[in-house]
């Protein structure tokens, strides 16, 4: 993975596969405390304790198409390289929460990358799901909520390519004012 936005895309695919209806992503940048935090929350099917124990094992996957599952392992490795950590909480039937901590100033922390593209692609591929993305930095806060977007669109489909191009532009413009 070249940047955090690709990791985020990858991790959120897990929530999509868990049939979540609401997926929340929070990014918190705190330069004073030297913390760069990603927090994922979904209301999907969750995991049993046995699965949860194996989740960071690169040779464990619930898929049958291949025998490795690297998504979480790669993110964990990146977080730990900066002195950070990755923690998961999950309850079967309730959902999963994942917290990733990076050192903000560490040179090994991947850059954020094109987060607007990530959100736009996720929204376009899963128009029936709701996404809530909150980004907080010392300069301010931006919240992207697909529930609000759906209200504005008044029934026009979220997966129309024209609409998606506008959505990406909107997220980009707002994120660029705070990072």
């Amino acid at each position: 993975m070249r940047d955090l936005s690709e990791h985020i895309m990858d991790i959120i695919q897990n929530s999509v596969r868990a049939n979540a209806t609401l997926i929340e992503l929070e990014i918190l940048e705190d330069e004073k405390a030297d913390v760069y935090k990603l927090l994922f929350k979904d209301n999907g099917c969750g995991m049993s304790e046995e699965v949860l124990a194996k989740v960071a094992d690169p040779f464990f996957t619930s898929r049958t198409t291949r025998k490795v599952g690297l998504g979480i392992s790669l993110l964990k490795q990146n977080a730990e390289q900066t002195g950070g950590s990755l923690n998961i909480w999950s309850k079967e039937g309730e959902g999963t929460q994942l917290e990733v901590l990076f050192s903000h100033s560490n040179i090994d922390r991947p850059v954020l990358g094109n987060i607007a593209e990530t959100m736009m692609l996720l929204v376009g591929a899963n128009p029936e799901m709701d996404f809530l993305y909150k980004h907080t930095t010392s300069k301010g806060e931006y919240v992207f909520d697909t529930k609000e977007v759906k209200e504005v669109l008044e029934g026009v489909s979220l997966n129309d390519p024209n609409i998606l191009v506008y959505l990406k532009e909107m997220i980009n413009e707002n994120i660029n004012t705070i990072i």
Partner: protein
Amino acid sequence: MAKVKSLADLKKMKENLQSKMDLREKSDAPDSMVQVKVGMATCGIASGAKEVMNFFIEESAKRGISAVVTQTGCMGYCFAEPTIEVIMPGKDPIVFGDVDVKKADEIIEKYVKNGELVDGIIPVNYNTID
């Protein structure tokens, strides 16, 4: 064109679009449109599937192709990522491997527009060795 900065701008853009064309609820009639599914698992993302999917969305908007671009999981072709599946209305799905932006452009121009096959098709009868 002014940039979209807020939900109010988005609403304006949507109304502009609606006056120009008829925006359908796409999920109602996916069979009548081109469906593009991009393999977006760890293997796909690491090989640049995000860029390819973004290209398909932007180009369908620009070139006026009525398409639904969506994501799918790993199809087991990790060696040939980014992998995409294209379903033309009324035709069998075709899977293309090693799709970069250049290849994606070729697929749109040749296969989607004219129905010509291009290199890089992964045959459906391919079996993995267990």
